[in-house]
């Protein structure tokens, strides 16, 4: 296993709900659609999904409710046993693990945050955060220290002794986050962590989350059904529908080159200038050397708007992450994004 091994690699994963899913899947002719499968009395929670999560990446999984997002992520941690395909976590086939090994894996590598928090109502904040450590058998003193540190990290100091019902929704989710981080997981699953919160608090929690991620740099699978949230956070976005992944790509590519009709509809109403970055429009130089100062490849078109409008150049150089010119972009293409085609 090296650094290039994906943290999670899912290949042709199926998860069917119904009376005898394995048997059904084995005897199923290929190419049956979601509706066909439903007519046979099964629900395809996850339908032939191949996707991977690379180290340090934030993969956002999107889709309407019921599209199979939660189910997919639960297949990654084997909260659901998959019906077909393979899931490998750091090169290990997760379905081949014994119960003991699975428990050890979760105790050492995985953390998860839930939509409605999933806190234990009879435990204080401190005891909730320390819970995974307690399960691991850590001694009382170290787990207390670690839990206090986590509580401080999410900004809940002074509330250690409160019970979940004595906290607001946002505070409860902070507890959920602190708990999921207590064991220092490498892989972090977040299932719509902010959708139960008010918009204002949601925004605040997203910032908080970005701050944490900036510090910790974990490999993350993040579920949301909110496109703005996805755009703010994602390295890559996977769009799901009826259990299948329609497209998995960087936000730019999803917006610029929707792979299917569905993704196109899904992204239609988005302000593309806010999403597309200069590097998304970048073309290879092919020997040309466009004049003038390059623009930052990571800057969104919206951020470049003023310069673009005044820039006399037809072709503008684009800088890569090292600051050197890595390609060029047509000004017209950028203006099309900014103002809409035509």
């Amino acid at each position: 296993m090296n650094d290039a091994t994906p943290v999670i690699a899912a290949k042709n994963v199926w998860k069917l709900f119904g009376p005898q899913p394995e048997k059904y899947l084995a005897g199923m002719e290929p190419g049956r659609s979601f509706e066909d499968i439903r007519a046979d009395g099964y629900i395809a929670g996850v339908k032939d999904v191949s996707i991977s999560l690379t180290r340090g990446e934030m993969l956002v999984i999107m889709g309407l409710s019921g599209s199979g997002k939660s189910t997919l992520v639960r297949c990654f941690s084997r909260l659901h046993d998959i019906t077909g395909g393979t899931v490998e976590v750091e090169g290990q086939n997760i379905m081949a693990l014994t119960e003991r090994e699975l428990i050890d894996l979760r105790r050492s590598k995985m953390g998860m945050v839930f939509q409605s928090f999933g806190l234990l109502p009879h435990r204080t904040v401190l005891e909730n955060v320390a819970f995974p450590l307690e399960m691991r058998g850590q001694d009382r003193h170290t787990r207390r220290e670690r839990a206090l540190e986590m509580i401080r990290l999410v900004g809940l100091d002074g509330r250690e002794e409160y019970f979940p019902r004595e906290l607001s929704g946002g505070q409860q989710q902070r507890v959920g986050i602190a708990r999921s981080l207590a064991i220092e997981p490498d892989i972090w699953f977040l299932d719509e962590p902010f959708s139960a919160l008010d918009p204002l608090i949601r925004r605040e929690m997203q910032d908080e989350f970005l701050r944490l991620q900036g510090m910790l740099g974990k490999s993350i699978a993040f579920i949301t059904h909110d496109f703005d949230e996805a755009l703010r956070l994602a390295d890559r976005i996977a769009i799901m529908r009826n259990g299948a992944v329609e497209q998995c790509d960087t936000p730019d590519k999803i917006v610029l080159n929707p792979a299917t009709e569905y993704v196109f509809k899904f992204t239609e109403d988005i302000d593309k200038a806010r999403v597309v970055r200069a590097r998304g429009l970048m073309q290879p130089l092919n020997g040309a050397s466009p004049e003038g100062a390059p623009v930052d490849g990571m800057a969104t078109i919206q951020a470049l708007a003023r310069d673009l409008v005044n820039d006399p150049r037809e072709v503008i150089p684009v800088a890569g992450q090292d600051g050197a010119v890595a390609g060029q972009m047509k000004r017209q293409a950028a203006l099309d994004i900014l103002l809409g085609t035509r």
Partner: protein
Amino acid sequence: MAVASTDYAVQKTVELSLRNRVLWAMLGTALLLMLCRALGILPEWLIRLPEWAIPPSDIWLDAAFSFVQNDLGLIHVTRFVAEGPLEFLLDATANLLYGKRRWPDLGPIPWTAIAAAAAVIGYYLGGWRMSLLAGGTFVWTALIGQWEIAMQTMSVLTVAAPIAFLTGLGLGILAWKYAWFDKAIKPVLSVLQTLPFFTYLLPAVIFFKVGPTAGAVATIVYAIPPMILMTTLGLKKVSTEVVEAGHMSGCTRWQMLTRVYIPTARTEILVGVNQVIMLCLAMVVLTAFIGMPGLGAKLLAMMGSFKLGRSFEIGVTIVLLAIMLDRLSKAWVVKQPEHFERGTPWWQRHIFLLFTIGAFAVFVALAQVIQVFSEIGRTQHFSRGKEIDGIIKAALDIDMVQATTEWLRWFLNVNVLIPFRNSMLWVPTPAFILLVVAFAYWLGGRRPALYATVFFTIVAFSGWWDRSVITLYTVISAVIMATLIGIPLGIFAARSEKWSRRILLACDTAQTFPSFIYLIPAIMLFGVNDVAVVFSILIFSMVPLTRYTIEGLRTVPPEMTEAADMSGASRRQKLLSVQLPLALPTMAVGFNQAIMFAFFMVIIAAFIGTQDLGQELQRTLAGTELGKNFVLGMNVSLMALTFDLTILSWAEKRKKALGLA
């Protein structure tokens, strides 16, 4: 589509007319049989089953029991369990609570210490009022001179309730974990819940010797079913996210169960605890029938010798104990943990525990010095049994009261009860069964009718037909009268928020009383006779009727009453054409409970002298005719089950039809 719907309609009418034809056939045959009887042309064997046709089932059962007991050696196993650990525990609590000479030979604990500790616990759970209730109950018990008998009852309760709790919890966990086990015990549980209490006394008497051990066993078994149900309910309700959080935290199966599931299902489990305690209390009092000493036995003795004053005082003690146990355990259910600020010292976190121990210790110490703090002597108590006797008797002797009760008794007996009873006894057996089956078919449909046929045929072949009919007559007349009073009361109360609350509270409280209590006013008013029996059943079964009437009416969706208001319905029209029809399914559940309660009570009331199955049961419970006892018990259960199945099936169908389910 149109074709399909007419098809459906046609099918419906066909079904209806078939149903009507079956009904009329049954009723017609029954009437024909009765007519023949009236004309005197019905052969004897159609009026009652001839002696030779009745199998000696009691003798067979006796043989079967003795086979299981002696030849299979089961009795050794049960005796070992009972006389080993169980008896040991019972002896220990008996020593602590009332000083029976057994290990650990420390008791009796001074009454003041128990009362003080109870008061602190009451305060912790529910503030001053609970404190007063808890402490006050024990103080009353001691001062009235009933400490020892109350503690006899409590000593069994303190053993039986925890055992029932743990067993129920364990079985509940199994049922939740293993679907096959759940499927296996579901039907058993639902039958167990319709069984009258003495059915639990029976096996206890069969396998254990009469006395506290048998009583404890019966009590434990009686209290287990609801604990199982509440446990599975609670565990199933734990939200998937909490469960998943547990898995993701790396819980093993055992950690999952003990750290996640059980604590999260706390509320339901504690509701189960409340039910366990209340059922245990109800049963412990009733085990007086199989020779268990305590409040129940004393009450039986006092009522038997018509000492109304003392009966009344014991009744008050029982009621106080019941209310206290109920309220405290319910307060525990709703009690949520409160947080302490960081750095709160240890003693402050456990302040109530320390106070409880402190109060207990102080009074134990005081009791060493001051005699009355330890025990209230025979001559020191404040019982006013004789005086109350006098007052009650004087009150009853007041001409008007006496005239009223006398007249009621006379009127009910001569004009209602006796004619009703005689006419029921007059009906030939096959006609009677047909009528019951027709009723079940009309109300419940095919399945209940089938059960009714089987069940009542068994009763007919059991050899106790007449007594069974008398039992049924008592139940029916009491429930009819309870309906006439209870439902109007419910309707009245449902009209206002305030009265609903009051009456519901009264019903709730009354339901926590052990059934024995209901005999006291009946005997006081009417003496020892049929009317008193009917009267005690009447009050007992009125409680669920009133309760469910209020609940049914109060839960009618407001859109519907508002719609009625907007259509200009008068209050009466609204009640008759909107509220009552919608409330009827719920009320039927109450009616069903009333009938069940009546079947329970009939046995208990038998003690005041009736000629029905109950009395026969009473006689055999004390003795050794177990086979006969079993047959009698079965008869009551079968009749109760028939009504249970029929009415619940109707309520179910009705709810579906109204879209309320």
